[in-house]
């Protein structure tokens, strides 16, 4: 039997960085395959190669035995691969029917749009797939789940035999997820092959037949989901780190002496995001909030930094309740935030290292409105040395630095504000191992000098390496805190993957 999709021997490198390494990815007709891996594992690159957005460096892609050219999106669509992206690719101002046939609308013999035919075909497609939309509905008026269904219909309208779904449930509520899964099961029966890309373990076990796990651009595990369990899947995804750190960990456990409570969060809630969050953060400790991606941890951090307002609950700093309504106030109160997306939210990419360094603490460098250039330079140079930033030239434009060095610049910027509380959101995503260690060391030093650190991280290895205490967040609910060192790697993984089972 011919494979529905056969991507063989696929490699892809960008400027010497190997994103995918000699990967074989084959699917049978009617198969639902999960594609999992942590950030930077190579999932996105694989999707882009399959849709033709990127050409692979080596390897071939064929659909039902017919080879595709690679690097030609139009040819891939007509060849039978469609992708449903995380963010919608529908035109919101058009109707369902108009969207279904984008770029390929039926016309009559005068070259005018054949609206009747278009509507008829749309109606047929909707009926065949038991979708609850009308061809005349405006896409912008549809809830997200229906938009996803329309995207699936659009893929079917283009006669796709393979549909990629990139995080299809990221914006859906639980009942909506179930609806989507019903649709997937129905498609499966008609012989459509689906690649299901997701971080949500329970969804994968509910709807997928097989799974492929990528890590660092390589295939690390592949097999039937029936023959494995959540913990081992997460284990494959994250790798088995943390083994040789057990000694170090025991040492550290004894060191943990709780200082003063600097931050207390009481019953913090935001509608539809998270509810009843309670925790405290002490001086001289690193507290990690872990969980799977999409568990609304960043949204919690936003409330602490004044980017968003909670609906309910209170934030206490040094025992005093505070209403933090702007980042400016948060900074004045001694909080720093290293945001998740350093390029979009953190850095001034066309500015130099020293300019980025002082951007959040201008007051310390400005006298009567003028910069104290010498002070800026010395401070930036100190930080370059302390954080081991390469190149060690304060004049270099930040946009040209590597991910790890950019992250260090961003961290340096916030340390320069001398905060009491440093909040970091996924501090080492896309950061190389060397830079990771540098960052950990700096955080340790900050903590030992009495600072309080709150980290959101999905990287279990990282959590075990640096956390004193751990909280697990799942679907907007926060667990009680526990001692990071009291748990083994496996137990922590189980907590992360296990707790997300109890949805609803």
């Amino acid at each position, binding site marked *: 039997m011919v494979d529905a999709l056969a991507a063989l021997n696929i490699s892809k490198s960008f400027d010497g960085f190997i994103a995918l390494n000699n990967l074989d990815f084959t699917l049978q007709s009617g198969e639902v395959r999960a594609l999992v891996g942590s950030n930077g594992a190579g999932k996105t690159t694989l999707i882009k190669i399959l849709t033709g957005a990127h050409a692979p460096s080596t390897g071939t892609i064929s659909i039902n035995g017919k080879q595709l050219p690679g690097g030609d*999106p*139009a040819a891939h*669509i007509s060849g039978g691969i469609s992708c449903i992206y995380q963010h919608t*690719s*529908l*035109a*919101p*101002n*058009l109707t369902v029917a*108009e*969207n279904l046939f*984008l*770029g*390929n*609308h039926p*016309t009559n013999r005068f*070259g*005018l*749009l054949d*609206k009747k035919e278009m509507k008829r075909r749309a109606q047929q497609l909707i009926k065949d797939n038991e979708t609850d939309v009308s061809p005349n509905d405006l896409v912008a008026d549809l809830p997200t789940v229906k938009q996803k269904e329309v995207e699936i219909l659009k893929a079917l309208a283009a006669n796709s035999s393979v549909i990629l779904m990139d995080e299809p449930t990221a914006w859906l509520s639980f009942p909506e997820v179930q609806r989507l899964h019903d649709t997937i099961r129905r498609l499966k029966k008609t012989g459509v092959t689906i690649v299901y890309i997701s971080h949500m373990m329970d969804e994968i076990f509910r709807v997928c037949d097989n799974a492929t796990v990528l890590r660092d651009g390589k295939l690390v595990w592949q097999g039937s989901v029936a023959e494995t369990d959540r913990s081992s899947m997460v284990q494959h995804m994250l790798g088995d780190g943390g083994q040789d750190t057990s000694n170090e960990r025991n040492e550290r456990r004894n060191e943990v002496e709780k200082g003063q409570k600097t931050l207390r969060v009481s019953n913090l809630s935001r509608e539809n995001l998270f509810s009843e969050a309670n925790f405290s953060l002490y001086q001289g400790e690193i507290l990690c909030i872990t969980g799977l991606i999409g568990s609304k941890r960043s949204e919690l951090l936003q409330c602490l930094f004044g980017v968003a307002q909670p609906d309910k609950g209170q934030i206490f700093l040094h025992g005093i309740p505070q209403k933090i309504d702007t980042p400016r106030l948060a900074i004045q109160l001694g909080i720093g935030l290293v945001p998740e997306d350093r390029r979009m939210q953190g850095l001034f990419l066309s500015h130099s290292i020293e300019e980025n360094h002082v951007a959040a603490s201008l007051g310390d460098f400005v006298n009567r409105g003028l910069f104290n250039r010498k002070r800026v330079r010395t401070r930036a140079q100190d930080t370059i040395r302390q954080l081991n930033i390469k190149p060690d030239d304060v004049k270099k434009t930040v946009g040209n630095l590597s991910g790890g060095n950019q992250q260090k610049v961003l961290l340096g910027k916030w340390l320069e504000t001398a905060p009491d509380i440093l909040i970091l959101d996924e501090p080492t995503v896309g950061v190389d191992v060397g830079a990771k260690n540098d960052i950990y060391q700096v955080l340790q030093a900050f903590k030992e000098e009495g600072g309080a650190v709150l980290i959101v991280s999905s990287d279990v290895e990282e959590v075990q390496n640096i956390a004193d205490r751990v909280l697990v967040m799942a679907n907007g609910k926060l667990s009680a805190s526990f001692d990071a060192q009291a748990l083994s790697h496996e137990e922590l993984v189980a907590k992360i993957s296990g707790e997300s089972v109890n949805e609803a």
Partner: protein
Amino acid sequence: MAFFKIPNLVIILLTTVIFTIFAFTADRFLTLANIENILTGYSFLAIIAIGQSLTIMARGIDLSVGSTVALAAMVLFDATMIFELPGVFAILIALVAATAAGALNGLLIVYLRLQPFVATLATLAAYRGIVYAISGRQLYPELPTKAVTDPWIRWLGDFFDVERALGLGDFISLPWIPISFFILLIYAIAIGLLLGRTRWGLNLRTYGGSPEAAHLAGLKVNRLVISVYALCGFSAGLAGIILVGRFTTATEALGSGMELTAITAAVIGGTRLQGGIGGVTGPVLGAFLLGIILIGLTLLEISQFYQQILTGGILIAAIGYDRLIEKRKAV
């Protein structure tokens, strides 16, 4: 036919209310002559507004329409007065020139990757310069005082006597309808069909609503954008030849500042600056609403300077209103 549906009940209501107010307050407002005035004075503007709304739907803007109006007018003037071409040819050449000017805007935006407003701000100056350079009125001293006599062109500025055509002249008196109004109607229907019933129109709305979706669907975006600006140029050209018919001459300064009124009419008519949403009825209604207000104020003997202030204010208020609705939707 979504494009002939009422796009915005608010503006029809608003037009009715304002019309009624003026009908009671301004003495000569509810007269046949004044209705003719409004139709003559704003039909050509509605045509420009239709073209303008196309560029706005494509997430752009065309500031050069005023100069393009003058360009078409001057080309027509030269063709008929200097080269003494028959009116039909002269009109054709003028429309081609205006379309080419629009297409050039599109080319600059697509291939030089200039922001629409910068590109068209620069061509606003350049096209106006061409108008001065080719002005037959300056090359031949006797021309400024001569009127265009070609019957084709004169016809463009003519009126149609409804009563006589219907044979009702003895019973009621109806306003004479300017030919330009009929041109507007035909043009609006044509563009409405283009928007609502062709792939081109659907592609334009797709691109305006989500350039990303247009790219992913493999639409030929560059060609689309160029054609939109070409059509906007054509609209301005149509307005230009109508004005020559009406004034029986072309002046170098014709159409200055018209981009503001055209953009205002398009925006009042519900064309979204975020792109993708717009039609033909909206800009046409917008143009006439503006016309009713401005002519009404003139009849009330309110200084035209106030009208200038008001036009700007209406534009800002219209986008503010648009943004407010957008916000309420998002919540």
